[in-house]
Each structure stands twice: as structure tokens, then as C-alpha cells.
């Protein structure tokens, strides 16, 4: 009898580890990331000088008014952007997911459905392939400076991202209820509502809220190229070297992200 003393998969694991290091090390060199630079005395002094201009946070009444308006702008951009993105994402996800395929159930090939699925997948790839910042630069030329450009840019890229992840969530959930409904002659949308969504809803909701949080961040970045909101205000404060204002803006931003986190936790409790 052949007795194996060693774990037969150990060699494979060791190989994977060595390969991982071999790939990561050159990439680290290319990225020119050198942690020691963070702690060089000259750099620390520069950093300290920069951060000290942030204190105290600006609290003038007219600036706080501006800040409130900009925060509202950012919230509106992110929320409307995500809402439009969902309008794009839901049909695309339903077209590209394999979970609702009747052909998969009985093994009959339906070339037309496969073609539609491939086309939908290609479209989501194109939508999310271009960064939202580039879309924002394009739309600023169409809509002019202001929130509308940010909304359009978010709707397009996030539509692509949500579609891809929605489709994947729908494929990675337990499909037994859906298959049973399809096998009992239910239509695809019926099977979606009665079999798939009840299983997948918590993950769909929490991913959407997480994406909303990302959209808040992205809308701040897009503000730097003129798409309104906290980013645009931040850009102006930084250009005027007003650290106190930048600090207040960062605090507002932090509060927004914390609110998003709380909302996500609350929504998950409602669904589960």
C-alpha cells in the first residue's frame, strides 16, 4: 500500500506563493513605492507644515452656507447618478445573467438568447471601461460647469459596474427556487420576482448602497474638473491655499461617508 506522508497539495500551494511574490515584486518596483520616503525628516516637516494650515477648520457663517449647499449638491449628484445608473443596470443585468436562462434548464441551445447575452455583456464592458472622470470632462463640455455633468458621468460608468455585479450576484445565489419555478412553466420575470430576488435581495441592496457611497466619493473627485459639489469647493479652497476650509470640507465628507455606512447597515437589517 502506498502511504503518502506529506500533504499532496502542499507543493501546489508553495508554487502559487512563490509565483505571487515573483509577480508582485517587479510591480512594486515599477510603481516606485518607497515607504522609507514617508519618514525622511525633510518630508515629515513638509507634511507637518501642510497639515498645520488645516487647523483650525473654517467656521465662518457664509462659508458654512456654501459648504451646506455643496454637500447637498454632492448628495444630489450621487443619488440621482445611482438612480439613473440602476435604470441602465437592471435591464442589462437581466439580459446578461445566465440564471434566468430557460435554455440552461433543459439543455436546448437558443442561439438568439446567447447572442443577446453576449451583446449585453459587451455593452456593460464599454460603459464601465472608460473612467467616470473622462466622462465628466466630456459632459462638462456639453452641460457646462455644474452638477449635471457629474450626474451623466456617474450614470454611465456606474450603470456598467452595477450591471456586471448584479448579473454576477444573480448567478452566484442559490438557483434551486428559480429552477423549480421555470420548470413549472413560470416566465422569466416571474421566476425573477418569486425565486431569485428573495434569495439575492440583501446582497443586491448592500452592494447598491456601497456603490452609492463610492458615487459620493467619485462626485467629489469629479468636482475638481468642474462638475459641482464638494469637489469644486475643495478645488477653489486648495487653489487659494485655504487649509481651514479644506479641513471643514473633509469633515463634511467624512460625515457623509459615515451616514452612508449607517444607511447600509439599516437597510440590510430591513431586508434580512
Amino acid at each position, binding site marked *: 500500500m502506498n502511504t503518502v506522508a506529506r500533504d499532496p497539495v502542499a507543493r501546489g500551494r508553495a508554487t502559487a506563493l512563490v509565483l505571487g511574490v515573483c509577480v508582485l515584486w517587479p510591480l512594486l518596483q515599477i510603481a516606485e513605492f518607497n515607504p522609507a520616503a514617508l519618514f525622511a525628516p525633510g518630508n515629515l516637516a513638509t507634511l507637518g507644515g501642510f497639515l498645520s494650515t488645516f487647523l483650525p477648520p473654517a467656521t465662518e457663517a457664509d462659508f458654512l452656507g456654501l459648504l451646506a449647499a455643496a454637500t447637498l449638491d454632492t448628495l444630489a449628484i450621487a443619488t440621482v447618478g445611482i438612480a439613473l445608473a440602476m435604470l441602465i443596470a437592471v435591464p442589462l443585468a437581466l439580459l446578461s445573467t445566465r440564471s434566468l436562462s*430557460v435554455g440552461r*434548464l*433543459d*439543455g*436546448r441551445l*437558443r442561439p438568439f438568447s446567447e447572442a443577446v447575452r453576449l451583446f449585453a455583456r459587451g455593452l456593460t464592458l464599454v460603459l464601465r471601461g472608460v473612467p467616470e472622470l473622462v466622462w465628466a470632462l466630456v459632459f462638462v463640455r456639453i452641460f457646462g460647469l455644474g452638477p449635471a455633468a457629474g450626474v451623466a458621468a456617474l450614470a454611465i460608468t456606474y450603470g456598467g*459596474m452595477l450591471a456586471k*455585479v448584479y448579473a*454576477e*450576484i444573480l448567478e*452566484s*445565489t*442559490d438557483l*434551486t*427556487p428559480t*429552477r*423549480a*419555478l421555470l*420548470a*413549472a*412553466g*413560470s*416566465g422569466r*420575470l*416571474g*421566476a425573477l*420576482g*418569486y*425565486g431569485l430576488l*428573495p*434569495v439575492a*435581495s*440583501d*446582497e443586491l441592496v448592500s*452592494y447598491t448602497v456601497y456603490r452609492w457611497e463610492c458615487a459620493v466619493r467619485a462626485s467629489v473627485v469629479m468636482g475638481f474638473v468642474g462638475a459641482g459639489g464638494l469637489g469644486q469647493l475643495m478645488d477653489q479652497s486648495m487653489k487659494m491655499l485655504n487649509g481651514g476650509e479644506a479641513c471643514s470640507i473633509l469633515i463634511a465628507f467624512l460625515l457623509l461617508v459615515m451616514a452612508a455606512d449607517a444607511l447600509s447597515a439599516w437597510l440590510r437589517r430591513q*431586508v*434580512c
Partner: protein
Amino acid sequence: MISLSAVCVAHARGRLALDGIDLSVTAGERVAVIGPSGAGKTTLLRVIGASLRPTVGQLRIDGVDPWSLNGRALQGLRSRIGKMHQAPPIPPRQRVVTAVLAGRLGQWPLWRAVASLVYPLDIAGARAVLEPLGLADRLFDRCDQLSGGQLQRVALARLFYQQPQLVLADEPVSALDPALARSVAVALNEDAKQRGVTLIASLHAVDLALSEFSRVIGLRDGRVAFDRPAAQLGPAEIDALYAGAPVSEVVETPESAPRPRLTRCA
């Protein structure tokens, strides 16, 4: 009227799950399919339910080959076939009323299915099928608050709500305690008798097959070992059916464990 002629089903790697099955079941018959694990009971039920296309041979339901139908007609046929499974395919977070109403998704137009998700449109209908099963008071509870036996009875209520002309039950009582198993088997048979529909069930409990069903088919290695009225079946034949079945095959393996959920960061 269901007829199978020379039906074979080959799995991957060429193993035959069904090997030349000839069978006909007339309307209103109540048939139990018994046999050791791996004999092909589940495959046979999936073929009859027009879920699995036979590799060779032909299935006819009321004289029609389901696989010659177009998509819509096949969907219509499937909506007239009710299926029950060992593990009830009901989402845990769904409410009982919704799970029951889902039985008629194949007959309802889409607007009705969607509207019923917002507000259940046939609460009285759902209550009427749950009442005899002793679950009327759980109508608005979530299914994950029910026990395994209660959940299987919800699946039964969904089947009754669907009012199918053909009922296929794949080991519907294997996960239940003996008393509950008998009551579910009796309920299935009573409904079939009352509405005059055909019932085909695969069972591990031979005593239930003999006492409740009118006809028993013994399946082994994908072939029909015997096929006769329950009253004419002796213990010798049943012992022969199960004799020599490897112990490892008798151990039930769950059909497919739910896949682990992925955590996504993007």
C-alpha cells in the same frame, strides 16, 4: 396519458442513468417508483416532467412529444405539471402566502405576478389550500420561521394551488418523520383521487408505496425491474430489488449544496 418508448439518458462520461425504459401511465393512475439510490428515479421523473431531454427514445404526454413544441407551448405544458422535491425549493425569506401563490406563475399574466408581489392578490385562495394542511395561521409568516415539515407542507400547498394535471413528486417525504411522511403521502394521493389527476412519486419508504399507491414500479440500474399493481407485489421481489446494492450508494448525498457567497469589492 404518458408514454415512454426506449428512453435512454446518458450522463457525462457515458454512464447511462436510464437504459431503455418503456412505460405508459394512463390518466388518473397513482404510481410509486421505488428502487435503490442511483437507480434513476430522479432522472425518470425529470424526463417525464419535460425538464430533461432523453438522449435516445421518445416521451409523449397526451400524444405530444414535448421536445417538438416551441418555447411557449412547452412552457404551457410545464405549467400543467406540478413538481415536488425532497428539499422544498422555497426562498427562506419569502412569506408563506407568496410561496403558495407562486404555484400559478405559469398561468398568470406578468402584470398579475408583479402586482401580487406588491399585494397578494389571492389571499383567500392561498388560505383555502393551507387550511386542510393546518397552516392557515402561518399565512403571513416568513418561510425561514417554519420547521422542515411545515415547509414541505407549504410546498404541498403550492402544488395544490397550481392544480396541475400531472403531479411528479421526487422523494417528497424522505426528509420527514414517519407520521408526517404518511400524512403528506396520503394528502398527495387524496388530491390526485379527488381531481382525477395522474400522480407519480419516487419513494424510499416501501410501506407507503404499497399502502397508498395503486401501482408500483421497481427501478434498478436504469431499467424497470418490475411494474405491477401494489396488491400483487410480494416481499421477495422487493428484497431482490434492493439486494446487493452497495452501501456507499445508499448514503444520500445532497443534490447541490448552495455555493458560498462571494464578497465583492470593486
